[in-house]
């Protein structure tokens, strides 16, 4: 449902225009289209539902404030807002507030196991097990860099592998993903 194609691009252009005009319906549509995708990523990063809800709201505020900065140059609308949501979530887990209140607390109980199910949900036909179709070592580098917000050297240290290996794994991981999702090779 988020795939490319000129039709979707046309719809997207229309939506972008509405967002620029700060049109309420446009933002409602953005929320309806992408809310669950953004929420899923945020939840994966911050791990706690109440925090994830705040971060989703903050992300929408940021999107609202920066629609003028968006252009087709920056990728698709979805990849652009995804980036905003991810960065807002990463900023959150690095914040003092989060560290004090959640990081050291026994959060397992509060964490959601909803996502364990969503991974195996099948509304993306054919991509159902995209995550599992990556080798664990490739899932791992994505986990550390994208979802934990580690730098390459932090990831190398945490995984006890050389920096070069982190780079290689990242490269192969993305190449594999492109193959699996049918994004053409460069």
């Amino acid at each position, binding site marked *: 449902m988020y795939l490319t194609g000129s039709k979707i691009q046309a719809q997207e252009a229309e939506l972008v225009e509405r967002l620029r005009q700060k049109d309420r319906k446009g933002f*409602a549509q953005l929320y309806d289209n992408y*809310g669950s995708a953004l929420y899923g990523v945020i*939840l994966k990063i911050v791990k706690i539902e109440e925090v994830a809800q705040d971060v989703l*709201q903050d992300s*929408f505020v940021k999107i609202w404030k920066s629609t003028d900065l968006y252009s087709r140059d920056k990728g698709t609308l979805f990849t652009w807002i*995804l980036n905003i949501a991810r960065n807002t979530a990463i900023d959150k887990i690095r914040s003092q507030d989060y560290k004090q209140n959640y990081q050291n607390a026994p959060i397992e109980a509060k964490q959601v196991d909803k996502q364990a199910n*969503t991974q195996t949900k099948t509304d993306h036909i054919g991509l159902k097990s995209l995550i599992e179709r990556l080798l664990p070592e490739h899932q791992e580098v994505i986990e550390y*860099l994208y979802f934990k917000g580690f730098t390459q050297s932090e990831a190398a240290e945490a995984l006890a592998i050389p920096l070069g290996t982190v780079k290689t794994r990242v490269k192969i991981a*993305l190449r594999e993903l492109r193959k699996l999702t049918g994004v053409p090779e460069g």
Partner: protein
Amino acid sequence: MDIKAYIESGIIECYVLGAVSSEEKAELEQLAEQYPEIKQEIEANKFALAEYVLQYHCEPPAELRDKVLQKLDELHEGEEDYPPKSQPKVIVLPRSRRAWIYPYLTAASIILLVISVGFDYLFYRDWQEAETRLMNLATENEQLHKQLRQMQTNYQDALAEVNILANKATKTIELKGVSNYPNAAVTLYWNTQSKDVHLVVRNLPTPPKGMQYQLWSIEGNKVEDAGMLAYENNHWQVMKMKTVQKATVFAITLEKSGGEATPKGAMYVKGEV
């Protein structure tokens, strides 16, 4: 700047995962402006990653939608006068004497609307077609590039071989497939003055992983290593081997990568001088 090497370096993938320094990020974004190949790579990687993270999608609680939208409304209120704070006054206009014109105006505007929708559709369709054509051209362009690279490689190989052959001192020895490998064929050029040996592989089975072909020069009972055959990027290049002073027979065997001091593996081709 070597764009291909830059793309191959893996920095784009790290960038897409949000794991580059701010300097690297700035540099990359600037390069993306200059080089469409880089921009395209970034987009493709972003897209694949987006598909991946979508797998984690999760429905937020229903009440959050209103909360978020309300928050945006508040932002709006902070700006200018949105939504309008005072209730607009409704003024009932007296029906003017020209009221007869309204039905016509309405009809005219509906007609204009229909025409405009028609044009919208036509433009949209044209635009879509143009988009498809552009995509096709991009694919075609990429294929042509691949072909061009292949041709360049072939041309360089041929040129190298011509240069060797042009030398009067060059002796050509055809190494032919032995019993189990009748189709194997390798041409060996031996420069009788400089003693340089070059190989051109005509047909050899692709070496299995961890194995490499090795050339041997044989003079009487003396068998000497004459170098390893390099199979790179699924391609046999014209290879310069070790210089050979004296030989009556040349042969190629399949050995462990790196080669052996004396032949241990199966022989594929052999040729007499």
